[in-house]
């Protein structure tokens, strides 16, 4: 157990680039008609098309790793006309169940209501690396377009054969194939009846351009909405199986502590309680959560603790603990920094610190595990069902084909649910108990034993010429990560480097990864340079920016905001920030109000322009953009994980402050629909401009430059 836990420790951003195992395509295909019944099916193996976008010109990224190239999807048209799409992606509130269904309906030419999706089930759905990295829309949209188009052509082919006519003249619309000459028509249901027709998808079929979409591109409501407002949707934590026990796991008092002694006799003496000790894993299962807690409380333990770094000293620790690395993977250099600095009429150096923050999804980690007939089934809210399956198989020495992981639509994740912790805990207890076991983490466990968005230190050295052109840009990120690390601005002489630091707290993905930290440092620094150059922050950026897509969002946001604004009230301030990441483009303008007497800070209004190619569902996109702005305000203003001697000091909503209703400003999301461009993901990039926009607005209001995130955890102190 112990070695497994160590192996599962998340390194920042590694998940994004994990190599893929060979998928289970052939096996699953054989099972396919057995499970679904007769009909028409199309299977797709995507080619490298999706990798292309990541390396598109202007995309500020130097990820050299290969992206997954063989993500499969499939589609089935049943004898009753029901259309079922299968994807390994998971729904966690980002509304992809709706947007993917729209895409299928659009391309197959069927009503939206006739499409259903089977998602994130390792037995029923194709292999998928995970739901992260804003990959669902750019990969799944074109794939499902292609499988739906192929299925449509198959159905047309069946009709053509039936009528003994050429398929070219037939028309598919509204779940029917029609012959315009003879006026005959057959429904998809009639055409699928009695067939077991399957087709592997030929490489690159043409797909319907966004300008001709009829169902995609529309603001359709979230599917299953009624189940959510009536409370009938079953999240993992709502599942109850016959004879199920409730599990609890004993946690060490501090990070890195090991079990010195353990007396579990009192817990074992309790009736109907199962106690499991396996290395450092100590857990109990009982008929109710309360009995399980009582049993856990009755276990007497001694722990050997080890000294740990505290939040007070984290930034100097990170700066001084960087691993020496000459890897080209972490370093980009262009021109001559020395020449660039020598040519500068003004130089500016600054250091930026970014705190650890927690995802705090409202549904904590949860899993229900059941062993039956030599097979293990686990329901769990995870972003990586197949990795969970593989880890379960490895931990329990089972074959992967005997482990099934199912992800019910989940109470959010934000990058925080990549690991298999709850799944392994529930399964370990279930194996010992011989009964199904449910484990639901407490809020305190979630705040302590999950993983965090890593802290970081960013150092920037820069120079500008008298005309405001950047001459030199040196950017070092310690620990927080490489996402969004490269500047989108035009600088002839630059050095960008990421410095790895051994983990202090367990760390991993978070919505947008390090793009927030890197944009905060860069865009704060650009604002400071604009003031040094005595230029308007917008003019200064535009002078140094030839990336057209960034310019367009910047111009759209400032136009809607009314930039430049004249101050009309005491304490008012305006700020802006922009950037690009993962194939999408963002610019934000913020208005703040500062009460200098009390130090109270309020974000009054945010205008954010966002462009991610062709929009699949404007309502879903607006939710993602608005949600990212609000979530981003937490990390911008006040969220920070405090820790000391291996203990989290604020593991509750009472002490870890997240944005609430009164913190929410007036928000205007300006969505730019580029029907001529492929759809990129939108779950992450909208978060990364908000912190620097707010920080720059605070400077505009007060003249105080805040270089650390969170900006004002205790309000703005008098200066």
């Amino acid at each position: 157990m112990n070695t497994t836990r160590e192996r599962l420790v998340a390194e920042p951003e590694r998940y994004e680039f994990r190599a893929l195992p060979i998928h289970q395509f052939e096996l699953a295909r054989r099972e396919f008609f057995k499970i679904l019944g007769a009909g028409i099916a199309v299977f797709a193996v995507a080619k490298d098309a999706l990798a292309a976008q990541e390396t598109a010109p202007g995309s500020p990224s130097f990820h050299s790793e290969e992206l997954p190239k063989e993500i499969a999807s499939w589609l089935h048209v049943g004898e009753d006309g029901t259309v079922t799409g299968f994807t390994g992606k998971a729904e966690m509130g980002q509304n992809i169940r709706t947007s993917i269904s729209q895409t299928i309906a659009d391309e197959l030419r069927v009503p939206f209501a006739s499409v259903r999706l089977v998602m994130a089930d390792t037995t029923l759905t194709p292999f998928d690396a995970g739901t992260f990295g804003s990959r669902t829309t750019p990969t799944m949209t074109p794939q499902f377009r292609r499988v739906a188009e192929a299925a449509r052509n198959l159905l047309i082919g069946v009709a053509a054969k039936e009528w003994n006519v050429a398929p070219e003249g037939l028309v598919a619309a509204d779940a029917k194939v029609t012959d315009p000459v003879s006026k005959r028509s057959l429904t998809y249901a009639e055409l699928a009846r009695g067939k077991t027709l399957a087709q592997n998808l030929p490489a690159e079929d043409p797909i319907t351009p966004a300008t001709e979409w009829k169902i995609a591109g529309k603001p359709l409501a979230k599917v299953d909405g009624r189940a959510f407002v009536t409370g009938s949707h079953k999240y993992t934590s709502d599942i109850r199986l016959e004879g199920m026990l409730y599990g609890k796991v004993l946690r060490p008092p501090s990070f890195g502590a090991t079990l010195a002694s353990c007396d579990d006799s009192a817990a074992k003496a309790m009736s109907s309680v199962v106690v499991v000790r396996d290395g450092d894993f100590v857990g109990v299962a009982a008929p109710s959560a309360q009995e399980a807690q009582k049993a856990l409380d009755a276990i007497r333990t001694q722990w050997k603790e080890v000294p740990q770094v505290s939040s007070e000293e984290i930034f100097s620790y990170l700066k001084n603990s960087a691993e020496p690395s000459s890897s080209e993977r972490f370093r980009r250099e262009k021109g001559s920094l020395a020449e660039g600095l020598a040519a500068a009429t003004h130089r500016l150096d600054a250091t930026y610190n970014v705190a650890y923050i927690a995802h705090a999804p409202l549904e904590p980690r949860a899993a229900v595990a059941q062993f039956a007939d030599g097979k293990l089934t686990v329901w769990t809210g995870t972003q990586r069902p197949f990795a969970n399956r593989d880890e379960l198989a490895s931990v329990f020495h089972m074959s992967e084909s005997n482990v099934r992981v199912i992800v019910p639509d989940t109470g959010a994740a934000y990058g925080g649910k990549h690991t298999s912790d709850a799944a392994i805990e529930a399964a370990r207890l279930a194996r010992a108990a011989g009964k199904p076991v449910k484990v639901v983490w407490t809020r305190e466990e979630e705040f302590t034993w999950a993983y965090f968005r890593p802290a970081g230190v960013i150092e920037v050295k820069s120079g500008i010429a008298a005309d405001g052109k950047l001459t030199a840009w040196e950017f070092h990120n310690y620990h927080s990560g490489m996402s969004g690390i490269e500047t989108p601005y035009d600088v002839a002489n630059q050095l960008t480097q990421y410095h790895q630091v051994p983990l202090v707290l367990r760390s991993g993905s978070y919505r947008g990864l390090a793009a927030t930290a890197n944009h905060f440092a860069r865009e704060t620094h650009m604002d400071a340079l604009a003031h040094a150059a005595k230029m308007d922050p917008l003019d200064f950026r535009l002078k140094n920016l030839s990336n057209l897509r960034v310019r367009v969002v910047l111009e759209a946001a400032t136009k809607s905001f009314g930039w430049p604004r004249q101050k009309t009230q005491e304490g008012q301030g305006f700020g802006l920030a922009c950037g690009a990441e993962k194939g999408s483009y963002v610019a934000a303008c913020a208005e703040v109000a500062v009460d200098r007497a009390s130090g109270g800070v309020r974000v009054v209004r945010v205008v954010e322009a966002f462009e991610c190619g062709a929009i699949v569902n404007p309502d879903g996109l607006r939710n993602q953009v608005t949600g990212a702005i609000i979530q981003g305000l937490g990390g911008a203003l006040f969220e920070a994980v405090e820790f000391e001697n291996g203990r989290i000091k604020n593991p509750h909503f009472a002490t870890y402050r997240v944005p609430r209703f009164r913190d929410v400003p007036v928000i205007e999301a300006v969505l730019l629909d580029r029907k001529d461009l492929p759809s990129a993901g939108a779950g992450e990039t909208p978060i990364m401009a908000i912190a620097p926009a707010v920080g720059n607005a605070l400077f505009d209001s007060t003249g105080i430059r805040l270089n650390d995130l969170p900006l004002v955890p205790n309000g703005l102190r008098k200066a």
Partner: protein
Amino acid sequence: MAKSMEIEVNGKRYVVSYPPDTPLLFVLRDELGLTGTKYGCGEGQCGACTVLLAGAPRRSCQIPLSAAAAKPVTTIEGLEKDGKLHPVQQAFLDAGAFQCAYCTAGMVMSSVGLLETNANRRPEEIVGFLQGHVCRCGTHPSVIEAVEQAAKMIEERRR
């Protein structure tokens, strides 16, 4: 020690046997299978477990079973009448005021409690009343829109 007690939930009476200090939340979810009420923090800080106790919104993780025995409890499952959603549910659905929706039941219950006593509420009152609810997906603007819409629907209904 477990004690037999009678509670009334959504108009039905149940006899349950639990220690009297057991939070109502766990009895609703684990014993009665009413899982629409969510665990979010167990500390009364997030609002996900909100139910109506004699019509007033309360955090069910903070209510001992013994305190719930004397008063009728309403959960999210008890709002729909004859296949018709409560105006607050309908307004949340119409406004699409949810993303992962894990916080939705709690917000709906609070809003029902607020508006059923008086549907004529100022926007600041609604914001203040929902301040105790956490939504991590950031649906706050559409939630406010939904509650304002529901207030209008309830006013209409009363006219």
